[in-house]
């Protein structure tokens, strides 16, 4: 039984990265715990309601998406359907046309389709405008967390990057660095011809797109350029505007420990006749990219995810390994299910091994996704196609024959000294082997009767 790539990555990870991730995730867990009951009241009832509603969405996805399309078109939002990442990239390329200056609001869907390198190779100037994503971009890095892209970096590292890029005098004061980025990004917003964003929720009954953020860069990106292109995974649709009352609260509290995000945008179409600002075109690209397939399979419930990142923050493995360890856009417990669900268990099923199955992810999930049960199922699938599966058949032989079992136990103290077994060496690399202490239960029990 081999270790996953997450273990391999963790073994060569700088301790300072773990320190950065730990500090930020611990903080988020505390903030979430404090805010959630204050914001939604009965947390359990809110999670149950949200899970049921998202299940309802998945059960009625076709009709809801058709309704969304019709109402978007009525609002002047042009809807495009992308079967896969390639098609999504091509649609966006075609929509951008000759407009080469692009600003981007933070979007995991655009990460999923690897949009930036695609556009850059074709002569576009793409600027990430979320502060964290901007740092990722100037460093040639990748986001390591779906909500906090540079959670793996320290303030000092960011300060060095800004200084290197000539954004301003060296500073390790977060506010000063923010002002430096702000000054730089302002000019980008003013020059931009296309703004690309994700979508947090798309409302079927009204055809409105809902985006949440804290920095204001989303608003700039979606309103200043002539063209706004929004990319959404097809599971992001919600039936009614009133559903937002629950979901906006759950998302803000679960993601960042906020009652409400600083900005909540309702986008109901392009600039109308007599209006003097806003984009002249708004496009919604609805991305499948494997989601329809997931919908029909055993990991369907992962499509309930609202990308809050709470499962990453609370996950002990994520904290030790950081998001890059997963080698996929989606990391942590979410990624350990979604990545193999999207790309296939054969390719990424080993990610499911990178879990103690402690269940903290399911406990914090605002839509109650049974992540541990899914991890177990992925492990089952992966093991069936794996040649080096553990010698569990031999173990089962002993564990179904009581006499053999008892003989094995009697020999254990000796066996643990002389045996060579991958389990033993894996254990002993970091720990002392357990010793039998005190009385033997079976002998004690026989002595009583």
């Amino acid at each position, binding site marked *: 039984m081999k270790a996953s790539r997450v273990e391999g990555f963790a073994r060569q990870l700088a301790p300072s990265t773990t320190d950065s991730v730990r500090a930020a995730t611990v903080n988020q867990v505390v903030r979430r715990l404090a805010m959630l009951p204050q914001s939604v009241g009965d947390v359990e009832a809110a999670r149950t309601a949200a899970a049921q509603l998202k299940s309802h969405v998945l059960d009625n996805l076709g009709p809801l998406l058709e309704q969304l399309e019709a109402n978007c078109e009525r609002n002047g939002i042009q809807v495009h359907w992308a079967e896969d990442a390639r098609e999504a990239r091509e649609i966006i390329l075609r929509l951008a046309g000759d407009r080469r200056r692009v600003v981007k609001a933070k979007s995991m869907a655009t990460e999923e389709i690897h949009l930036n390198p695609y556009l850059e190779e074709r002569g576009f100037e793409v600027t990430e405008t979320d502060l964290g994503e901007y740092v990722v971009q100037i460093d040639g890095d990748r986001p390591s967390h779906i909500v906090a892209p540079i959670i793996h970096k320290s303030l000092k590292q960011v300060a060095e990057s800004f200084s290197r890029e000539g954004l301003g005098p060296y500073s390790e004061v977060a506010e000063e660095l923010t002002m430096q980025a702000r000054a730089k990004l302002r000019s980008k917003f003013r020059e931009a011809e296309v703004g690309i964003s994700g979508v947090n929720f798309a409302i079927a009954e009204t055809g409105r797109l809902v985006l949440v953020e804290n920095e204001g860069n989303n608003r700039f990106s979606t309103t200043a350029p002539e063209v706004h292109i929004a990319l959404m995974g097809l599971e992001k649709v919600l039936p009614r505007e009133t559903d937002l009352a629950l979901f906006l609260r759950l998302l803000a509290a679960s993601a960042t420990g906020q009652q409400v995000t600083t900005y909540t945008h309702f986008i109901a179409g392009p600039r109308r006749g007599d209006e003097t600002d806003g984009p002249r075109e708004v496009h919604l690209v609805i991305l499948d990219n494997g989601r329809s397939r997931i919908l029909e399979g055993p990991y369907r419930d992962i499509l309930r995810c609202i990308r809050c990142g709470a499962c990453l923050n609370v996950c002990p493995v994520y904290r*030790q390994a950081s998001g890059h360890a997963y080698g996929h856009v989606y990391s942590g417990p979410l990624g350990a299910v979604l990545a193999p669900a999207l790309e296939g268990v054969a390719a990424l099923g080993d990610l499911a091994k990178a879990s*103690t199955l402690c269940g903290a992810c399911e406990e914090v999930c605002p839509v109650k996704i049974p992540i541990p049960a899914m991890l177990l199922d992925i492990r089952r699938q992966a093991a069936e196609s794996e040649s080096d599966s553990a010698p569990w058949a031999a173990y089962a032989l002993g564990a179904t024959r009581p006499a053999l079992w008892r003989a094995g136990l009697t020999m254990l103290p000796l066996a643990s000294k002389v045996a060579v077994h991958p389990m033993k060496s894996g254990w002993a690399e970091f720990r002392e082997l357990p010793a039998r202490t005190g009385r033997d*239960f079976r002998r*004690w029990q026989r002595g009583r009767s």
Partner: protein
Amino acid sequence: MKVRLMLTCLCDAFAGEVGIATVRVLEHLGCEVAFEPNQTCCGQPPFNSGDWKAAREIAQHCRSVLLPETDDVPLVAPSGSCTAMVREGYAQLFGQHGPARAFELGEFIVRVLGVTTWPASKPYPRKVALHPGCHGRSLGLRDEHRQLLTSIPGLELVEFLQPEQCCGFGGAFAATHGKLSQGIGKEKLLNVLAAQPEELVGTDMGCLLHLKGLQDRDGGTLRIRHFAEVLAETLP
């Protein structure tokens, strides 16, 4: 009340005293404790590793020995992990929920027997940190162990940071993902030690053997015990 003891493979192999303590605790509460010598393992190691064929074979053996259809005697284990396997894991393994008559020790005492104050006849004058095993989550446990421990005269429960975090054991994970497991475990120990307890009490031998192994490697000296041993020590 008649109960059946699920000794668990780890107590069977390494920690007989925890099994003995569990029997003493249950007997003190008036239970008649039956031990089936043919019991082995619950099947969780292969189940968690993806070998469900091996897991089913072991689970079937476990059910026939410990959960016979001829009676409805509850099963009690000094482990949330093994209990969760029997109660939740078997449901996933066999595609249907079986009779939910398996209980973790603290859960059984508080929820089934209704005992919320531990009938200690001796004080336990020590500062204790409690690490509740993560399987309490899937079992729906809340503060059963805390409730019983704090009712013991002299016992002072100390709070530590990030109590919700796993210890990093995770069964075979501890061996296959040694570096991650170690990192998680050391963080747990650091948080616990910062609260300056005299001992660390846990509800699952998996967590405890892992934490003790880590500590022994580094020369640590914190006393590490099972919940059942604490309860038993206060008995006459």
